[in-house]
């Protein structure tokens, strides 16, 4: 069921969670724009969120809002040699051969900001 680029059910749940989180914070305020951070290693496909956003937000204060998604790329620090390196996926090893790394970026899944009617 994990077919990159396709729409997965968990992006529906993630998008629903975005609506809940925004309503928890902003009440009924009409949202004009929302900016999300979805890291490339988060396991959430940004295009799938875009695909289901209009459907999920229908009838909510987010209906009609423009959706902006920032996709931080993966960065890690090797715990063995201390080098910092980029990761396209979670399988990349440090140049020293170590898999023992601390992820610094790429797993973000958060709502950065919203623009509301003042």
């Amino acid at each position, binding site marked *: 069921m994990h077919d990159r680029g396709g729409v997965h059910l968990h992006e529906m749940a993630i998008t629903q969670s975005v609506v809940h989180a925004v309503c928890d914070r902003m009440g009924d305020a009409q949202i004009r724009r929302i900016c999300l951070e979805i890291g490339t290693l988060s396991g959430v496909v940004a295009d799938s969120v875009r695909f289901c956003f209009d459907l999920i937000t229908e009838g909510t204060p987010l209906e009609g809002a423009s959706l902006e998604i920032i996709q931080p790329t993966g960065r890690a620090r090797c715990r063995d040699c201390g080098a910092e390196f980029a990761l396209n*996926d979670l399988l990349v090893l440090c140049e020293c051969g170590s898999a023992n790394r601390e992820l610094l970026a790429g797993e973000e899944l958060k709502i950065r900001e919203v623009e509301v009617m003042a």
Partner: protein
Amino acid sequence: MCATCGCSGETILEPHEHDHEHQHEHGHGHSHTRTVTLEQAVLARNDALAELNRKWLAERSILAVNLMSSPGAGKTTLLERTIRELGSELRVSVVEGDQETVLDADRIRATGAPAVQINTGSGCHLDAKMLAGGLQTLDPPEGSVVLIENVGNLVCPALFDLGEQARVVITSVTEGAEKPRKYPQMFRAADLVLLNKIDLLPYVRFDIEDFLDGARRANPGVEVLQLSATTGDGVADWYGWLRVRLP
């Protein structure tokens, strides 16, 4: 506060543009906007409920383990054997997540263990709220073990914290050795990987070294146990893993 017209706002990052002159008393019917910084985790609500579950379980000294796999990896068969073989030693109950049917819960109840079925419908994973409801119904006794059989799927369950103490990923040799490479988020989330159906190794093409390398890349240092839920080979190590985690 809005710098231009005085309406209140939590955070204003950028002054917005006003094309019109401010000669008039204006209400808020016009369409200027303000930007509010949230910096909030998308799954904050689930994570908060998961923390409540974790506290609830800890207060009762209950060990809750979240079992995740693709469909057909052998979760239910492993649960059946675990309950039959550890039932006299541990009090085990089961939360069954399934999209539609009660078949798995029926299989568990046939072993004599209490089981509660959560049908997720179109949902592809259990979340913390569902587990909270399941625990209320199940009412597991203090000092017992709750095994949570998540919906069969190696993608979505990885994202949702349930409040469990440990996450176990079960995969089988018939699924192929590339599973950790295809689903690294799931393997990264695991505290333990169980490689099931090793009795079938003579009949399938499965490179164990390649599998272990993929698992190590996704989750350095993750423990991997090899077993067969059907024949019982290797299950003693799984029981040992459970025993040392009992509160």
